[in-house]
């Protein structure tokens, strides 16, 4: 079969890797019959509605009965909520009334009722919205699935499957996990929805937020779910399947038994030690990074503390969390990046105008400088967590000196306040900026006067250099990091950095693929930060590579004009080395 492999990026829901054949449950407008009924059908429709509810409640009760005490404690409450909503008198009366007054079938009535609830919620506090309305949405979808007779008994499946669906209720997820479903991809659902929480407690790799996925993927297509990186690969190549199988094995090994990693060395075949750091999105990943022998945290993203929250986290809450992480890693370094939101990812408790071009709009440091209290609170929390001397501050999306000096003033202000409050912090805390906007490349020497280190954000840099949206599936190939322009840009950056003599860390996804790693090492980069799951894979790779060979290879590549040619050469190099 020569189907083309495609990669989709979604939201990370639950870590882990799953490889298998897809089972697609879809319920689009196409699959659901919505129609007007005649008055004498009112009874039939109301009956259908009540039976569907009864069926789901019975099944939920059955599932609760099957649970062991641990599951009952963790998952039980979510199933109870689902049951309670379905048996809610107001809900039942609403649907029945819509059936008889609007003269519509019960599918239509159910959707109308949920639409009303969702509107009501939307008109109110925005913050709670995400989790709550996706929870309701998943219950609506479940009802529609049951009504359409499309709820499938997948207990007949005889190999491991990945469930692709619009949405899922916690009860369904639990049920399918007991069958042969090993991974989940959904179109909707935030990280804090009930289903997401249940997926994590069941250790089922899951991603969400991939639009139209039920229309693109067919049942029995090959699929890989990479829950660590929020990625779904449709029709993966044999190489991708191989790569992910080994990732899966190393991850399972490492998470099963706590391997002693003190003797851990990331050393190349010709004896060069590479520094490997972890990119952390959620506090729960910290233990994994530690057990994998990471040299520190190269990028601690802090968006987790702000998104899907009813209000901004307090200084105390942030401090406690940052401090716990810093203590766990001590004496290794922990680089904390200040809030990088904007565009679509604005926290619910902040109101901001919709922007026409959010990627180039008020995000990251631009957002923080406009929300000074929020920013000052975070800076204070980071400073307080630095009292051991192993915490660094990283500022995202700096594009010009003014933003940097303004930030430095705020950091100074935070230090002054903390001194007055008699709170401990590291007065010499190191400050770095993300190098992800091309303007910084041209002002690197100026910036260097103010900062201690740079972090190369390859994801955004490639977007801005190539003017492509990485989220756009059609343009995915154009967003590759091994095109001639990117490689040359990376070379220019490295040469400048060497003159400045300040450290640079690579923390984009570029540090996660074999070909890209070869290029980075060949160019001279020695500090790489990556998702914890990629660390064992890197360890396998680095053992086989001669750095001096990679360096001569890159000297050749840098002259090449075609990306295809570069890719070929890189692939051949990696084959020869292993």
């Amino acid at each position, binding site marked *: 079969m020569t189907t083309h492999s495609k990669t989709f990026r979604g939201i990370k829901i639950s870590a882990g890797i799953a490889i298998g054949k897809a089972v697609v449950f879809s319920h689009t407008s196409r699959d659901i019959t919505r129609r007007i009924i005649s008055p004498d059908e009112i009874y039939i429709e109301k009956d259908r509605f009540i039976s569907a509810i009864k069926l789901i409640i019975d099944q939920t009760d059955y599932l609760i009965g099957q649970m062991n005490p641990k599951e009952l404690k963790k998952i039980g*409450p*979510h199933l*109870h*909520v689902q049951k*309670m*909503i379905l048996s*809610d*008198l*107001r*809900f039942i009366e*609403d649907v029945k009334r819509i059936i008889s007054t609007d003269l519509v079938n019960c599918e239509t009535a159910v959707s109308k009722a949920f639409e009303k*609830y969702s509107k*009501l*919620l939307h008109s*109110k*506090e925005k*913050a*709670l919205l995400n*989790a*709550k309305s996706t*929870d*309701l949405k998943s219950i609506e979808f479940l009802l529609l699935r049951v009504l359409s007779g499309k709820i499938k008994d997948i207990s007949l499946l005889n190999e491991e499957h990945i469930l692709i669906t619009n949405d899922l209720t916690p009860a369904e997820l639990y049920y399918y996990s007991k069958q042969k479903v090993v991974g989940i991809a959904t179109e909707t659902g935030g990280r804090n929805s*009930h289903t997401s929480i249940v997926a994590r407690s069941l250790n089922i790799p899951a991603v969400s937020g991939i639009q139209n996925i039920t229309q693109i993927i067919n049942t029995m297509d090959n699929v890989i779910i990479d829950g660590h990186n929020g990625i779904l690969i449709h029709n993966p190549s044999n190489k991708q399947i191989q790569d992910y199988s080994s990732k899966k094995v190393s991850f399972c090994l490492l998470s099963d038994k706590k391997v002693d990693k003190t003797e851990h060395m990331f050393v190349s075949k010709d004896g060069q030690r590479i520094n490997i750091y972890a990119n952390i999105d959620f506090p729960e990943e910290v233990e994994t990074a530690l057990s994998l022998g990471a040299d520190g945290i190269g990028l601690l993203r802090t968006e987790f503390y702000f998104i899907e929250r*009813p*209000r901004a986290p307090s200084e105390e809450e942030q401090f406690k969390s940052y401090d716990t992480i810093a203590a766990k890693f001590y004496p290794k370094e922990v680089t904390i990046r200040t809030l990088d939101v904007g565009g679509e990812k604005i926290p619910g408790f902040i109101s901001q105008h919709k922007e026409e071009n959010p990627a180039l709009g008020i995000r990251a440091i631009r957002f923080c400088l406009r929300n000074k209290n929020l920013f000052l609170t975070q800076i204070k929390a980071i400073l307080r967590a630095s009292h051991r001397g192993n915490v660094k501050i990283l500022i995202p999306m700096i594009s010009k000196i003014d933003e940097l000096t303004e930030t430095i003033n705020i950091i100074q202000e935070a230090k002054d306040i903390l001194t007055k409050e008699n709170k401990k912090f590291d007065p010499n805390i190191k400050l770095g900026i993300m190098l992800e906007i091309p303007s910084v490349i041209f002002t690197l020497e100026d910036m260097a006067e103010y900062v201690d280190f740079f972090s190369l954000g390859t994801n955004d840099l490639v977007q801005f250099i190539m003017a492509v949206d990485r989220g756009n599936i059609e343009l995915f190939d154009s967003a590759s990091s091994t095109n001639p322009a990117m490689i040359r840009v990376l070379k220019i950056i490295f040469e400048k950095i060497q003159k400045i003599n300040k450290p640079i860390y690579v923390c984009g996804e570029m540090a996660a693929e074999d070909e890209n790693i070869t290029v980075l090492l060949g160019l001279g980069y020695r500090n790489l930060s990556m998702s914890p799951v990629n660390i064992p894979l890197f360890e396998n790779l680095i053992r086989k590579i001669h750095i001096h060979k990679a360096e001569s290879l890159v000297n050749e590549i840098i002259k090449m004009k075609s990306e295809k040619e570069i890719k070929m050469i890189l692939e051949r190099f990696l084959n020869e080395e292993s």
Partner: protein
Amino acid sequence: MLECDDSPKPDGSSKKLIKTLTLKNQLGLHARAAAALVNTANKFVSDIQIHYNNETANCKSIMGILMLSAPLGAEIQFVIEGEDAHQALHEIERLIENKFGEPE
């Protein structure tokens, strides 16, 4: 805050209690908290209404409570009427005081 109407009702038993309570848990009346509130309310025969932001919901209906969208710090008025009103108010207060058993 507590208004207590202990005057004997025609049936000789009913009591009406009104009390405003402040939500202390981080997520406010989200689904699991709402479910806990409904579970508590359902243990009593008293009629329990809650008022917040000019809206009223039956404390025994999760949908109604969810639609109130009450966040952390929201002041919610409970109107409880029935023979076990005192006991019901006591348990609801405790539930809210304990932040619905949520970890912080």
